[in-house]
């Protein structure tokens, strides 16, 4: 029952869903509790669990109505030990970024919002290993964090209609790469040439919750080279 200590609240989420909220002093701690519970549940290979959708501090458990109900979910949570990630369970990715790339350059604006020089912004973004908190919103969209407090940057007042695929962006204390062209309200740092989402599944980078990411500065020539190679 020790793990109930990490669970703050459990709520129904529809007929076939239960959402669990987790405690923690920081967002990273809360998210670790989410991931540990998701791993614990996955390890049990319960065939009546249809889907485990992790949020930042929550886990949505969707189940097969024919074979389960909320009471079975509660009982199962009580009997499930959260699991820390094993070493080989998560991948580390190094994502190349052409900072200040045409079409994805808010460096001046970010500089204004944070008071940092453009070099400091790039430095803070490349010097840290980020953790993927969750993947969602769109296929392959990975929410990573947490940014250095100095780089904290509010969203745009009005979102852009179009952000190019591969745009590397920051908002609040999070960073992300837009896997495909979409509207978006985050501040753009540059562009990553590696595909993070292809409908046929051939993308070289598939970010999953718990994975770690570092960003590597490249120049325009290298960007073009890599973009061509991954067409």
């Amino acid at each position, binding site marked *: 029952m020790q793990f109930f200590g990490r669970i703050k609240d459990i709520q129904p989420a529809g007929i076939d869903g239960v959402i669990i909220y987790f405690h923690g002093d920081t967002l990273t701690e809360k998210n670790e509790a989410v991931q540990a519970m998701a791993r614990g549940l996955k390890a049990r290979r319960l065939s009546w669990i249809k*889907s485990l959708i992790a949020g930042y501090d929550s886990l949505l458990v969707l189940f097969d109505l024919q074979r389960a109900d909320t009471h079975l979910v509660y009982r199962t949570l009580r009997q499930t030990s959260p699991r820390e990630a094993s070493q080989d369970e998560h991948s580390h990715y190094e994502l190349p970024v052409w900072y200040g790339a045409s079409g994805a350059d808010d460096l001046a604006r970010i500089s204004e919002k944070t008071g940092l020089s453009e070099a400091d912004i790039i430095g803070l973004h490349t010097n840290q290993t980020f953790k993927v908190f969750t993947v969602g919103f769109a296929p392959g969209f990975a929410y990573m964090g947490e940014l250095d407090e100095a780089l904290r940057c509010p969203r745009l007042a009005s979102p852009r209609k179009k952000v190019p695929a591969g745009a590397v962006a920051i908002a609040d204390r999070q960073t992300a790469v837009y896997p495909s062209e979409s509207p978006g309200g985050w501040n753009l740092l540059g562009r990553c040439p590696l595909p993070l989402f292809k409908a046929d599944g051939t993308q070289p980078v598939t970010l999953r919750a718990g994975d770690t990411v570092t960003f590597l500065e490249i120049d325009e020539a290298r960007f073009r080279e890599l973009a061509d190679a991954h067409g």
Partner: protein
Amino acid sequence: MPMGEIAITEPGLQLLVVDAGRDTHAQETGYCASGALDQLSFELVNWLCENDLDAPALECMGEMQLSVSAETTVAVGGPSVSVWQNDEPVPAWQSHSLQAGDTLRVKPARMGTKTYIGFGGIIDLPVVQGSKSIVTREGVGGRNNDGASIKSGEVLLVELHQHHPQRALKDNEKPDYSLEKPLDVVVGYQHEHFDNWQQQLFFASEYQVTNDISRMGYRLKGQAIAYPDTDLYSEGINCGAIQFPGDGQPIIMLADRQTLGGYPKIGCVADYDLYRLAQAVPGDTITFQSISSDNARAKWLLRHRLEERIFDSEDADNGDDT
């Protein structure tokens, strides 16, 4: 199996291929659930064609027309839809045999409802995450796997079944799309954070379906519901979740919803009532009533049993059960 061609001559307002949706685990990597908005009508046209209940079918809005290149079983279902085979009116909710060169035309009485057209066979399209559903928002699915809806002049290939069932729904087996009864809502998510009287206000109010409806979600308008300021991180959204953005007007999330979102939610429309919502058109009035998750599950199981009785009936007639 012979391949047949279905040529779309008039696609209507929007024509998509849909099925039961993606693998249930696809949402964990950000793919939307996808699939038919009105799963009940979708399953029924598949049953009429003697298909697996999750076989791909057409979902269309407005008047559409197609022709076939070979003998093909078709079945059409949806709210008050008229059907013509070669300009001769034929009934909805039963299987028909189209001959090579025949045309099929459908026209719903009200603009905006969804009509489902099943074919006796398997539509040949790319499979993404276990589904052939076209998801326009993601640019996924369809012949070129780019999420484009089906246009006039396009041809769909179908691996046709060689048997041609004659099935029809009895009147009492056809879906009741009426919105007179409230939609059941399993309260949950952030409901405890809404003041009690705001919850009561929501369940006591009538809401209109707005023009702002899509496969992602339906925006309603009516009594605004207030929600105290809180920090809410993005979290998983189940189908039917009722969320309130800043203006306090409900949005009900549907098949193509994003997997995560950060608006407060009061609960979730029960799965068995979602087809009625999906068939509502702008201006329709909707009301809600709360139900516990246990009672909702019991109701779901009962409805499911009734549907299974329809789906199993033909087998019993064929003596497969004995």
